[in-house]
């Protein structure tokens, strides 16, 4: 298809995207947020285990998320900030992934996870109304799990569940969070999932999640998945009543993973320990090891209790338009650029 024809087909989505962006900006302004811009080319990109940053010359990399600098802004005295920006993740390319995509990330100082969940419910409604897709959106078959009739109701309150509940209900596993890797492998095999003989704890977790759980999420209505095991929440604070889980939720809607939220860890000593452990795991797995962000660690000491969240803006547009592929909501997919 030539470019004119391709863009003609995309034009309605581009109009929708612009309308949604304007409406969501309006929400944050009304809520008293300041819109900020932080660097894209940094010394210490996010070092989560399964993210690979793109090199950007001079020993720097492109951000995988704006998290570190936004936390430094919060520590520097800006209590409610939001950013709409491009994030870059190597090797990510699929119906819902692009190596370059748009994130909306916001932080509420003194805020709660409940407030972030209400933000999500409001933003989804605003986006849907902006394109006349309220209160139900179609879910195309590529995104439908096994348990959906092809439409998603977007009215609040969304469904809430926990990682442990999901493992119990759909895999028959009583998940602790501190199991030995060998124990995890045994639990997964008993649940009928195939894992390699050397699979690490998190490898097993994701295999079970994908094989047994994901198809059930966010069908019928959007679902918040709360209380993630500590190994999967390096930047989140532990729950007061359960050190094996952290304050983290993910929002799933119509087969899309939309948002990831943390009660932010502000203890620089614990954060350093987690960064060091993660760097070692990256080294063992042959992933690039990035320098630890010392400026962030220094700022964390000044950071008040804060909740923060990152939401995939392209996926939000996909959700309310009922799109099958992230390409459908982009002016240029990375191979069209």
């Amino acid at each position, binding site marked *: 298809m030539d470019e004119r024809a391709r863009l003609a087909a995309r034009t309605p989505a581009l109009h929708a995207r612009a309308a949604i962006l304007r409406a969501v900006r309006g929400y944050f302004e009304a809520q008293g947020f300041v819109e900020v811009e932080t660097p894209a080319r940094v010394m210490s990109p996010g070092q989560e285990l399964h993210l690979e940053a793109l090199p950007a010359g001079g020993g720097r990399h492109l951000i995988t998320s704006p998290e570190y600098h936004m936390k430094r802004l919060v520590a520097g005295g800006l209590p409610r900030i939001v950013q709409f920006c491009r994030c870059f993740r190597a090797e990510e390319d699929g119906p819902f992934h692009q190596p370059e995509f748009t994130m909306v990330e916001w932080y509420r100082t003194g805020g709660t996870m409940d407030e972030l969940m209400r933000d999500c419910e409001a933003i989804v409604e605003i986006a849907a109304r902006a394109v006349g897709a309220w209160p139900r959106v179609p879910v195309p078959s590529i995104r439908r799990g096994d348990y959906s009739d092809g439409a998603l109701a977007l009215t609040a309150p969304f469904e809430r569940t926990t990682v442990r509940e999901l493992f119990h209900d759909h895999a028959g596993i009583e998940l602790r969070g501190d199991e030995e890797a060998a124990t995890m492998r045994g639990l997964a095999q008993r649940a009928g999932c195939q894992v390699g003989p050397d699979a690490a704890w*998190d490898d097993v977790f994701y295999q079970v*999640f*994908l*094989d047994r759980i994901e198809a059930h999420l966010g069908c019928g209505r959007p679902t918040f*998945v709360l209380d993630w095991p500590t190994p999967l929440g390096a930047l989140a604070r532990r729950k007061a009543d359960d050190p094996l889980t952290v304050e983290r939720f993910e929002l799933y809607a119509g087969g899309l993973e939309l948002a990831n939220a943390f009660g932010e860890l502000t203890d620089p000593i614990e954060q350093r320990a987690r960064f060091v452990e993660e760097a070692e795991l990256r080294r063992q797995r042959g992933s690039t090891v990035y320098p630890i962000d010392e400026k962030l660690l220094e700022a964390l000491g000044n950071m008040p209790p804060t909740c923060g969240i990152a939401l995939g803006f392209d996926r939000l547009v996909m959700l309310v338009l009922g799109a099958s592929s992230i390409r459908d909501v982009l002016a240029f997919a990375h191979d069209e650029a």
Partner: protein
Amino acid sequence: MASYDTSDIRKGLKVMMDGSPFTVIEFQFVKPGKGAAFTRTKLKNLLTGGIIDRNLRSGEKLEPANVETKTMQYLYKEGDSYVFMDTSTYDQVHIPDETIGDDSNFMPEQIVVEVLFFNDRAVGVTLPNFIEQKVMQTDPGFRGDTATGVTKPAHISTGASINVPLFINEGDTIKIDTRSGEYLERVGRA
């Protein structure tokens, strides 16, 4: 044979899974919960036709399946087996009745097919989607009867019976969809 890993996955890739040869029919990059990357793969069993779904961890190794397809011509039936010839090398292969199974219904002599070999043994044939065959036997239909949905059986050279419209006569050539066994249209009159 060197192994594949998930980055080699593409439609039509032939791999071993659970001891049987499969071909990849669909695949998709997924990354649950900001976690490890997987390739969600749909595979078809080359021996049974059954379809399975597997979530393969990125970097997981896959064993290639020793399968090969050859274009061959079906010559004739000899006892319990069907004789095929490679039209370029003139090599012949005998494939037993049980392997051919119901495919024999739409496999007239001289037809060119794709023969699937697994570990150098013929394990199945793929017929062309459509064949054109002369009607060897059929009762006359009632003249002037053009009501749709009313059919009669017609036999082709393989002995198979196809339901055809009443206006089809013996000696007519008909086009048949080998996948469904259905009559499509008349392409030649007696």
